[in-house]
């Protein structure tokens, strides 16, 4: 083979260029695949690594697609709000960030004000424009869609796919913007019990405005102020608003660090600094933040570890510092063997219960009560959650979560003391020789529910009940809840730990989550009053009334609140157990690395 002179020269040059480009610059490089250059944790900076099960997918945790726990966690770290929930389930205000004031009781009028000097992490002030956008989203004010029975939209549009409830702010009209430009005032058309948790600040309006192709935040505010309320009878096309909504709905979804830094803006102590898809996420201090407690940790790294045993081993190997594995006796036992780590256990805000249908075999209240007398609640607790929490007790209220002030007050009067122990004799008396056939439906793939069923069935048969096993596989039982075909069912509710509008959702006549057909005049009256009552003391009284009626009419029995486990490296301080979905993160600003 012969090469011409030119091709030889080109070849040599190409090889030389290749060889040169093969050298890395002396300033490191090459390694590390974080999207953003990270700051080094060395030099006295403190860093904490937390294991999470799911992967982060969106900076907007309130949209239909972004509504996942992990996204909510990042929001909790980066988006400050007017209040937060402590692990005593008490609502605390963040007065250094912003304030809210009830201007009048009737009509219910609330003024929200952001403090002066509070800014997004790019320096833009947080102001009424941001609050207006949040209101537009959370009120569903502009929606004018009509849906058919199958749930398909037949006319009009639902603008923002908000994953939260619009039942609160839906009662308000367009807010007034205060003269300082940092406050808005909302007026409810009727009192709303959960007004204090109905509104949150949400996403930066100037970013949404830009993303939707509007000139600036003011243009967005003007658009929201001028647009008329949506009317399903008379739907209108509103292309500009549609664009805003589209950006809000999906524009914040990303699994890589976005090129548009606006998506990552923070109003809280931390901001997202880098993301490695499927692996980890790093948050550092927000340099602008000075409105609230100063966190003691410089950097928080989140690593995604789906399996609980893997989380335990990663903790043991020092790869993560905090884990919240699925609580089970095995996990607890393996954590107990470790030294150098601490473990917290507690009860989550989800609880298992057995509900009896108001009708069919249970039409007679005596049969219901006879059945309730046979439910061995202590035994169920012993065989399920006691492996994690040895001194666990059954839950004694339908409505109140354990550990709340209302729980104690309610337990005294709600009649739960009648069902502390199994009383076969009494059940037999109530049955009076009858042998009713009871079909119990439950999720047969959930070991706790299977245990509960087995114990209940065994005990009920002693009293003369003829129990039929109605256990269904994990993918079937949910649909059967609504479809019926059972007399009793064992399943769980998940509570938020705050707010009262969930009560009529579960126990209201004909409401969506009321599967048993419970409909009691006294209870319904109390609930009707409850959702328009803003006084906490009065709310509690009304809830107790509902709780009492549930026991009196033989609704069924609450069984237990599920256990939770948190484990952490004992170089950390300030970690506390929290039962709701915020979990261990609830007081992240108090975490500290011991010197």
């Amino acid at each position: 083979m012969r090469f011409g002179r030119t091709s030889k020269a080109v070849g040599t040059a190409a090889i030389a260029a290749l060889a040169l480009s093969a050298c890395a610059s002396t300033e490191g490089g090459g390694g590390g695949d974080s999207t953003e250059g990270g700051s080094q944790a060395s030099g006295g900076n403190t860093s904490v690594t937390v294991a999470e099960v799911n992967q982060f997918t969106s900076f907007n945790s309130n949209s239909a697609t972004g509504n996942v726990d992990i996204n909510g966690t990042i929001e909790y770290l980066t988006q400050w709000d007017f209040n937060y929930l402590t692990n005593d389930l008490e609502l605390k205000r963040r007065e250094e960030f912003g304030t809210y004031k009830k201007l009048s009781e009737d009509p219910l009028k609330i003024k929200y004000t952001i403090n002066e000097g509070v800014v997004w992490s790019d320096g833009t002030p947080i102001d009424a424009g941001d609050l207006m956008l949040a209101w537009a989203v959370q009120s569903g004010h502009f929606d004018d869609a009509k849906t058919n029975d199958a749930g398909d939209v037949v006319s009009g549009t639902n603008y923002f796919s908000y994953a939260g409830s619009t039942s609160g702010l839906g009662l308000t009209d367009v807010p007034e913007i205060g003269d300082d430009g940092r406050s808005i005032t909302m007026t409810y058309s009727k009192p709303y019990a959960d007004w204090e948790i109905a509104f949150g600040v949400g996403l930066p309006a100037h970013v949404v405005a830009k993303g939707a192709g509007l000139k600036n935040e003011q243009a967005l505010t003007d658009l929201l102020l001028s647009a008329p309320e949506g009317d399903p009878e008379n739907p209108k096309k509103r292309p500009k608003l549609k664009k805003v909504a589209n950006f809000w709905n999906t524009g914040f979804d990303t699994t890589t660090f976005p090129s548009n830094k606006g998506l990552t803006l923070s109003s809280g102590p931390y901001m997202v600094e880098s993301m490695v898809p499927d692996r980890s996420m790093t948050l550092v201090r927000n340099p602008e933040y000075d409105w609230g407690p100063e966190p003691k940790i410089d950097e928080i790294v989140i690593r995604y570890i789906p399996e609980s045993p893997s989380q335990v081993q990663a903790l043991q190997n020092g790869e993560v510092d905090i884990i919240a594995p699925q609580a089970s006796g095995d996990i607890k036992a393996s954590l107990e063997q470790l030294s150098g780590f601490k473990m917290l256990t507690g009860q989550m805000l989800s609880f298992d219960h057995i509900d009896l249908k108001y009708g069919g075999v249970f039409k007679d209240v005596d049969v219901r009560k006879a059945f309730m007398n046979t439910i061995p609640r202590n035994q169920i607790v012993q065989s399920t959650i006691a492996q994690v929490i040895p001194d666990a007790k059954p839950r004694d209220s339908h409505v109140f979560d354990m550990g709340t002030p209302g729980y104690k007050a309610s337990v005294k009067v709600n009649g739960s003391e009648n069902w502390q122990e199994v009383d076969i004799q009494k059940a037999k008396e109530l049955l009076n020789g009858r042998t009713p056939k009871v079909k119990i439906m439950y999720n047969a793939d959930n070991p706790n529910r299977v245990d509960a069923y087995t114990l209940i069935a065994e005990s009920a048969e002693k009293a003369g009940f003829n129990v039929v096993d109605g256990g269904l596989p994990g993918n079937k039982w949910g649909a059967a809840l609504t479809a019926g075909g059972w007399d009793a069912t064992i399943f769980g509710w998940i509570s938020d730990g705050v707010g009262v509008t969930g009560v009529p959702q579960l126990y209201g006549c004909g409401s969506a989550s009321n599967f048993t057909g419970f409909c009691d005049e006294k209870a319904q009256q109390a609930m009707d009053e409850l959702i328009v009552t803003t006084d906490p003391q009065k709310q509690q009284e009304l809830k107790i009334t509902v709780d009492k009626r549930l026991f009196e009419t033989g609704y069924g029995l609450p069984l237990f609140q599920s256990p939770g486990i948190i484990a952490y490296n004992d170089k950390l301080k300030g970690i506390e157990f929290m039962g709701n979905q915020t979990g261990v993160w609830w007081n992240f600003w108090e975490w500290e690395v011991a010197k």
Partner: protein
Amino acid sequence: MVTYIVRRLVTAVLILLAASFLVYLLTAASGDPLQQYRQSSLPNKEQLIQQRIQLLNLNTPAPLRYFDWLGGAAGCLIPFAAECDLGKSIQGIEVTTLLARAMGQTIQLVTAATILAIIIGIALGIITALRQYSGLDYGVTFMAFLFFSLPIFWVAVLLKEYGAIGFNNFLNQPNIGLSAMGIIGLVAGFICYLVPKSGVKRKLIAAAIGFVAAVALCWYLDISGWFLTPGFGAIGVALMGVAAAYLVTVLTAGLRNRKALYSALITVGLGMIAYFAIQPLLDLATILMIIILGVGAVLVGVAVGYLMGGFDRRQSMNAAGLTAFLMGFVILLDRYMQEWPEYFNNSRIGGRPIATIGSSTPNLEGNFWIAGLDIFTHLLLPTIALMLISLASYSRYSRASMLEIMNQDYIRTARAKGLTERTVVMRHAFRNALIPLATLVAFDIGALIGGAIITEAVFAFSGMGQLFVDALNAVDPNPVMGVFLITGILAMTFNLVADLIYSVLDPRVRVKA
């Protein structure tokens, strides 16, 4: 041949269509996509259910939804159309993005394990076939079946417990106790005992040598603090180079071919010069540079062999080229070890280098070598776990195939005409024994992308298997279909490739249209 391939491809497309329809229906029927809302007590529960129904278009029956999906997916088959739409996951992420990422993770996880399993498995199979019914054969067979029958999640958890957590604890106080040394020595002695072909005396001598060598090595590693500042040093590199030269020559040319041996040894000499000359350059290393250097090394080796000339130039070139490659590998390893203390003491590592989860340490900053070590410490355990389990099939297959070949008439002929045993084994038997394995390897590479579901879950790798399982749990058909499409296409392709390779390798097999 062309007609055959076309016919196979057409059938493949039809099978894929039918199978994808089936998989779609199965996924849609696998669970309740609204499960998470059923026991929700949220006031806006119905609204959330509506949102989910619209997102997944649940009011349309699954068979019709399949054609929706197919319409988008069909765009992927037209090359360069750039309209590949595999839909989005429930969380609103493009399935194509998810797939690309998951495939990357899976390939990273299983590649090393597969290659090592193939090399080691075949080597073990050949050796045990040559020593049929010896202690070595039984030992290897026993171990292969033992590992094969172990559940991988259990192996993985044990590996993490001892290979990562235990070893990291050890590294904080790297002293090998006397009893540990004794046990290591006994194991080494036992393995060496199995190696000689026959004669109790020879076996005992081998065992003694093995015992002493292992204990001495442990003692040296312990005394020199090798675990904290590992490295071969110039002497170590030279010794390993010479060993490699002899081994390679034995396998490729035989020690009697002096020219081949000398070219290999000369290459080792050149490698030693390069070892010193190249160190400053390696500070600036990138992956491209390593590849260029590797290719350069092999070329130099081949050149040395060529210049040595002689009766059979090819053998010298092979020996020297392979030796150069191994020498380069040793130098590379040595270089990685030099960086070990820095990696070990990095604040992100904190003196616990072997990882139990993931594929990299978040926010670790460092040069090429640090990044490489990080990958190594993360991949070590999953690679061992996967390898142990797939060793068995390779070693069994290659043993059986080698045994069959060794009983063929042409092997007897080769021996009869006076060829050395090395030539008979390496040239006549070994190559032909590999032919049936080609099918196995092609299949495995096809299956490789499908992911190792359990291993991925235990080691927190979010690869194809994990993507599949997560999507199935959420009753989210789009990602499931994406995974199915990739694995299905690969399985079909490699099936075809395996058949074609077979006909190329073995002239007795002909493709008939």
